[in-house]
């Protein structure tokens, strides 16, 4: 078990290294313009561009440039040239809002997805199933920022049911915290409810044909028990894997749109504002931060899996 975990963590470090190289390439090498002018931002003067060139060593060979960038990121010295704010500080500052948004949305999407997927599978082919299918597909087809805008307009502005949001820290007032987050939670959850309930439905339909389900029925266990304890439980395994990956992705940047429209000052809003001013250092920082979260959750899921299923840690192929 320990050896497996160690191997996975080494792999994780390798992927993180590759990611940092890709980020470096995206911002410094691929684009067809002077990187110093780009990183200095939209309204830079020649003096600032010269300072950026010296700061980041952009007159040095490319490998040296990479090392300079990494040193800046790892020591937390990366600074925006447009606002002269420290990027690491800003990401830390945004973390509470982002985590509040993501954790709440995750609870909501998992609960609803299990309920919808279960109902859809149990009533497969009937009206409930069809209605839920159309509903999930609609959820998958909606641009997140548009849904956010519509909810804000109709529920907050017209009906005045919710505040036209902004983030209230949990420590300040837990009730107000939740009240301000209800619409963002719903917005972020809709896509995943649609997607997960579809996956769960088809998993459950597969599992229902398994021999052990027939055995369970043959033993005389009630239909409800069979569905909940045998079918649903076994159908949840792929969902949990997906959840690990998606949760990492949402924390690491998937919430940009929701945070931007609802004006929640999290990591995503920070990145969103940086796009407007073409301010690259924050984007560099947030991209690395996001990829880090995804890789981290990926590894956690893998290790948990190995813990639950000995076949994986003994080096056999992972079950599909």
């Amino acid at each position, binding site marked *: 078990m320990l050896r497996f975990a160690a191997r996975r963590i080494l792999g994780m470090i390798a992927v993180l290294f590759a990611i940092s190289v890709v980020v470096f390439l995206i911002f410094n090498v691929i684009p067809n313009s002077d990187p110093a002018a780009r990183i200095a931002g939209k309204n830079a003067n020649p003096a600032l561009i010269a300072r950026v060139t010296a700061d980041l060593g952009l007159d040095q060979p490319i490998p040296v440039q990479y090392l300079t960038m990494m040193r800046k990121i790892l020591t937390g010295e990366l600074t925006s040239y447009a606002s002269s704010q420290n990027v690491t500080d800003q990401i830390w500052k945004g973390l509470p809002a982002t985590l509040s948004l993501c954790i709440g949305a995750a609870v909501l999407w998992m609960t609803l997805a299990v309920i919808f997927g279960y109902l859809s599978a149990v009533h497969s082919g009937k009206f409930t199933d069809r209605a839920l299918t159309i509903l999930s597909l609609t959820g998958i087809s909606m641009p997140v920022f*548009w849904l956010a805008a*519509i909810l804000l*307009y109709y529920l907050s502005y017209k009906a005045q049911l919710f505040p036209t949001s902004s983030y209230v820290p949990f420590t300040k007032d837990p009730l107000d915290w939740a009240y301000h987050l209800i619409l963002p939670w719903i917005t972020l959850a809709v896509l995943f409810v649609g997607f997960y309930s579809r996956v769960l439905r088809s998993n459950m339909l597969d599992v229902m044909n398994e021999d052990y389900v027939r055995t369970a029925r043959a033993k005389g266990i009630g239909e409800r028990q069979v569905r909940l304890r045998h079918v649903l439980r076994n159908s949840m395994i792929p969902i949990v894997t997906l959840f690990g990956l998606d949760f990492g992705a949402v924390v690491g940047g*998937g919430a940009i749109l929701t945070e931007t429209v609802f004006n929640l000052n999290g990591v995503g809003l920070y*990145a969103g504002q940086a796009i407007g001013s073409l301010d690259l250092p924050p*984007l560099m920082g947030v991209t690395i931060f996001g990829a880090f979260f995804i890789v981290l959750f990926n590894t956690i899921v893998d290790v948990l899996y190995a813990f639950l299923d000995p076949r994986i840690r003994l080096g056999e192929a992972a079950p599909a």
Partner: protein
Amino acid sequence: MVASIGELEAPGEPPLPTGVAAEEIRGRSPWYLAWLRMRRNRVGLAFGVLFLLIVLACLAAPLWADHVAHTGPNENHITDKLLIDGQETYVVSPDGTPLAPGLHGRYLLGADQNGRDVMVRLLYGGRTSIYIGVVAALVTTVFAVLVGLLCGYYRGWIDAILSRVMDVVWAFPVLLLGIALGTALALGGLKIGAIVVAGDSLWIPILIIGLVYVPYMARPIRGEILALREKEFVEAAVAQGKGSLRIMLSELLPNVVSTIIVFFTLNIANNMLLESSLSFLGAGVRAPNASWGTMIADGYQTIYTAPHLTIVPGLLIVLTVLSLNVFGDGLRDALDPRAKIRLEH
């Protein structure tokens, strides 16, 4: 074909029943069977038709612009007045509120801040959105098929290298990778050897969106090729002395076409959503081009005074993407026999 079946039959097996008309035992190709299954899926077909109608409407944008609206997508009419119910009405009223949607011929879906006809802009914007969605899906498909075939057929170090590269792309949040590329390329564009792409070209979002999704399509194709490669018909092709290229193109590729078709359809839907998100954040389509995403980005600035500028383009995105998703879902059920078994239980 039918006549030769009897000759292939092993000796001792009963001969083909006589008296059965050739038509009745005519072989049914997998494509024909898939079509039969698809035909039963009325909802799926209806949404497929809906998508075609939206595409046709957008293609016919100049007709509407010239003969109904009498204005182009980028023509401003800030000071114009319109006769509605015998009353002179400002296209953009003096307090800055644009005309709302209504049945008045011109400005069917209202006007925007600059007095531009929303319906006309919507049709032209749809061209951009759908164009990006389809061309980016082609980019994804070409690369994904290439990677999938090479990895699945050659395995070994080619597979190891390409798979690791895909792992790294996979590790990025799609939206964030798109944003990073979109903003980094916005200023100076792209220059690879002799190919130069301007920063405001539609090819920037197309390439970004197309490449970001490659791993998501290449992985399943690679998996299928890996399995197919072990089948007898590949062994037979090798024994016949066919070269690697021929085996890949004429033996393996036709067997993954149904997977490709399903992914391609659903990929267009995803591309359109990603395009709208990138454009909304300012990292996608750039002026002077307009897409449904940039229209929402513009309209959102004034959502409280002119909500139709946000609502209408969004509804069209939902409708188009939903039609592709439902149709693609139906295609998958029709083309994947395993899904058929699942459905008929």
